[in-house]
């Protein structure tokens, strides 16, 4: 399953990573080298073996869906790149050309 430059471009788009042509070409080589080592797994007989779900005897416990975990020691303005009236500001979407630009 050799990775191609098209695969790298597709995966980078999925991962929201902008890659230069040079970096994308290098990643083709790097990913193929790394994934070749992963092919050792294909020879393992895993028929009837469950995939891991959780570690140890605890399974996958979930926290109850209520409230923020703790009060924040500092507000959004202290760490968010851009805010207004307690909201996060982002650049406009291309489908919202008439919206106010952030």
């Amino acid at each position, binding site marked *: 399953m050799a990775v191609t430059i098209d695969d790298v471009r597709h995966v980078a788009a999925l991962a929201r990573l*902008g890659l230069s042509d040079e970096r994308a070409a290098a990643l083709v080589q790097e990913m193929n080298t*790394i994934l070749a080592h992963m092919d050792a*797994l294909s020879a*393992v007989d*895993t028929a009837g073996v*469950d995939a891991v779900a959780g570690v140890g005897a605890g399974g996958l416990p979930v926290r109850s869906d209520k409230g923020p975990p703790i009060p924040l020691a500092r507000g959004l303005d202290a760490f968010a790149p851009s805010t207004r009236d307690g909201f996060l500001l982002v650049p406009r979407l291309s489908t919202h050309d008439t919206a106010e630009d952030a």
Partner: protein
Amino acid sequence: MSTSSISDLRAHTHTGTVGVHDTVAGALERVKAVKAGRDGLNIFVSLDEKHLRTHADACGPLLSHAEPSSLLGVPVAIKDNIATLHHPTTCGSRILEGYRSPYEATVVRRLREAGAVPFGKTNMDEFAMGSSTEHSAYGPTRNPLAPDRVPGGSSGGSAAAVAAGIVPAALGSETGGSVRQPAAFCGIVGVKPTYGRVSRFGLVAFASSLDQVGVFGATVDDAARTMHVIAGRDPLDSTSADLPVPEYHRASERSIRGLVVGRPKEYFPESLDPRIRARCDASFEKLRENGAEIRDVSLPHTELAIPVYYIVAPAEASSNLARFDGVRYGLRVQGDGLRGMYEATRSGGFGAEVTRRIMIGTYVLSAGYYDAYYRKAQQVRTLITGDFAKVFASGVDVLFTPTTPTPAFPIGAISDPYEMYLSDIFTATANLAGVPAMSQPIGRVDGLPIGGQFIAPHFGEDTMFSFAYALERALGAEAWS
């Protein structure tokens, strides 16, 4: 190493022989003496001397307690992927440069409540992805014992802070060996607890099914006392176990006579450096002299741990690191519209190794490849976990292995990513299975420290510490020679 033990510091602080201010001042002097700054060993990402001195002065009320707090007056360094309120939490990444968390990690709160002094944030491989602390946006950390060599990683800064004698203990994090491997390279003790033993609240997520906060100690006792403070149920982490936490330092009082140590053949391949094998054999002999039985065992899926780990961990990382996109915190780089901002921010903020792992992780989770890679890896992970379960069910109390296949390597010596991944070959299995493991010094090769690793069943830290204390006592000065 020149720092006092936790036991001594706690006692002397309580009796007033030593003030917290004096301890902090001494640690700060040590920072200068060993050249721990950016142009030297490069141990700390942030260290606020004025804040530390003020904090030390405020520790007075704790001194009046009849029973001294567990870590009274003890400076503890914190890896920079563990959230603190005063210092930035950068994860060694440009994308979080200057970021100050709005909340504090549970482990840091517990340290403070036990009387410890959080002593600066330590350098690390970016987002804990690395085995050498060379992959930090803030430059590589150097090994205090051999400055031309790496301290290991990803918690290399914390390991170096302890090895340089600045602090007796430090917090790190483990995903595939990031505490044990640097502990081995720096000649100190490093502990990865059972998955669920310690709260992950406030630990910036890398691979959530593998991540655990771990501890470094100059000695087994320093590590045991620090682990006892940070362990236990936390309502803010649903995966933390609701089980009693033993006083791990009491394990020093228990004999290992009659207990069984497994020697797994897969961790002693023919290719293993004979000098490392000899050090392990000497340790086995010491354990035998202390009454333990040594038994040959097999963990047949061990050689698959690296392929499994380097599928599972990047897959989880690709999801966890999706949050760093310039919207909520950290770096924002303007691009063409919203999507352009995402891509410009992430490409500008992440380094090469993090980018590579996000790409691998996204690929193995993508349509058409999920079953062949991710699902297959999770199935093999079940087999690896089963290997441990069978061995421990057969009556083996702990396993003993080398921690790493080599001593610390020179800075810049390994450029091939997969060769670097092989540094974790003896450590990643414990993370995949969720079992506790620890490394401690067992001697030197070419003047460089070698680590021996104990691995125990789930929540078997207490027994593991009994063995570690016994081996440390038995080896004595041999552990550092």
